[in-house]
């Protein structure tokens, strides 16, 4: 028996979410008294040194496998094979777009249950219970999983990275991947260049209608660049095409959980708050002292964005220069 963790790599590197997943998996494994196995299956597998370093977060063994294309279906097939080989009772993946494409395909192969958006370590005292986000950030549910094998898709930026062990053993892994897993043919990939993807950002600067028009977004971008933040926006802003829809956070956009969310000129409609309320620290900047955002914010500034933002940018530049 073991825990199996999927270590996603992008351009031969691991992202922070992988270290979170391994640290999380280690905690679950200790609870169940089992080993931690990791599979990295990708077109560009990181170096053996990087793979072995996952041992620091608790991995006992790291399997590596090179895929001919980065397709979630192929990753699911490799994971199903690995789960069989190591007798995995729990498979941990990141609850990102790729993870959510892998999880269902894997679940059907393993006859497993899935909990996505998981924000707790399982409680195994009474069944197998995990807490997960529901109602798009407005609430949490305690879910009991009853199948033998469970897949947990864990929410990024939720679990601490814990360093404990030494390097893990790295072994080549092979599994036959069916042609069916390569039925989608990628034509092109456009990665966001020179910007931090919103879903991975630790700091997010977000603008609403109070910014008055797309031509004023330079201020939002200035503050974001200075803080190493991603930019986001409210629904009306995306609907008016001031900003692309990928930046829309809220109930019908994306739900994010950064360490710091700075909302500028966003009133704080219930749908918007749903998407950002799990942020660790929230700053609201709004002209209207009655704006609902101030009820959920940790810090607030009642004032005009066009006065406040230049002051924040200047102070942030000063801080960064001193660091």
């Amino acid at each position: 028996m073991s825990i199996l963790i999927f270590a996603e790599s992008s351009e031969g590197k691991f992202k922070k979410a992988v270290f979170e997943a391994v640290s999380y998996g280690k905690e679950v494994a200790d609870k169940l008294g089992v080993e931690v196995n990791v599979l990295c299956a990708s077109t560009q597998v990181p170096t053996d040194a990087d793979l072995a370093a996952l041992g620091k977060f608790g991995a006992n063994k790291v399997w590596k496998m090179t895929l001919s294309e980065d397709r979630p279906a192929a990753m699911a097939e490799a994971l199903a094979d690995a789960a069989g080989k190591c007798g995995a009772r729990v498979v941990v993946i990141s609850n990102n777009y790729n993870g959510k494409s892998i999880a269902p395909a894997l679940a059907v192969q393993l006859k497993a249950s899935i909990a996505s958006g998981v924000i707790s370590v399982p409680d195994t005292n009474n069944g197998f219970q995990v807490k997960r986000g529901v109602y798009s950030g407005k609430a949490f549910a305690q879910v009991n999983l009853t199948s033998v094998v469970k897949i947990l898709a864990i929410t990024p930026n939720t679990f601490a990275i814990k360093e404990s062990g030494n390097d893990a053993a790295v072994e080549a892994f092979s599994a036959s991947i069916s042609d069916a897993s390569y039925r989608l043919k990628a034509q092109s990939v456009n990665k966001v260049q020179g910007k931090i993807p919103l879903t991975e950002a630790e700091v997010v600067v977000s603008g609403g209608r109070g910014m008055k028009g797309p031509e004023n977004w330079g201020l939002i971008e200035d503050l974001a660049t200075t803080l190493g933040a991603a930019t986001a926006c409210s629904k009306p802003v995306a609907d008016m095409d001031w900003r692309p829809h990928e930046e829309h956070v809220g109930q019908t956009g994306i739900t994010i959980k950064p360490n710091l969310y700075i909302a500028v000129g966003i009133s704080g409609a219930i749908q918007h708050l749903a998407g950002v309320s799990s942020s660790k620290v929230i700053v609201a900047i709004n002209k209207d002292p009655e704006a609902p955002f101030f009820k959920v914010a940790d810090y607030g500034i009642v004032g005009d964005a066009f006065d406040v933002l230049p002051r924040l940018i200047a102070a942030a530049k000063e801080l960064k220069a001193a660091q």
Partner: protein
Amino acid sequence: MKILVCMSVVPDTTTKITFTDNNTKFNTAGVQYIINPYDELSLTRALELTEAQGGTVTVIHVGLADSEASIRKALAIGAHDAIRINAEPVDATLVAQEIANWAGSQGFDLILTGRESIDYNGGLVGGLIAAHLDLPFINIVTQLDVAGTEVTAIRDIDGGKETVKANLPLVASAQKDLTEPRIPNMRGIMAARTKPLQVVEASGVQALGQSLSFELPPAKGAVKLIDAEKAGDLIQMLHQEAKII
């Protein structure tokens, strides 16, 4: 082209979420229900495709009789017929398996779902249906075009976008931007009354995940207000006090 659109019925986005029975049940009092917004995008795109190329759009919903008003709305928007599988939609495993069991023998060219429901937020049903029926799955599409049997789609991936091609039949899940939802007109509403809505008994799939209890996010303390004239102080507070930058 024969298209199946899977729809769930969810509380309106403005709903203030509360729970009853010692936080074990969602409080439905006064709640307005709507077609899950992502499923509505699937439905609209399906109608656009069949209007341009011919074909039919069937909507399918796993749920109890109280969701029929929302199913009628889907028919009013333009779906040709509807199926309701009579089961409590306990988890994604159950919903997807029931839909796959029914749809497997019906010869659909394209099966569309939303990328997630805005209540359960599982984001799994489309992928599960595809896996059960051994069909290709294009997750989180913002553009979907069909030419003959070839599908071209643009999908959101982590940190960017990917353009993919695949052949029908397949399953895809809708993301915002796929199209704009339609408001049903009076003719559609009248026509919906007589369109077929078939109730199918569930095949008895067991759910593997049960929501036992719910909780609301912890209440926030009072906001710390900073004078707009001294806005720069915020940066120091975030650095020294919150230790976040």
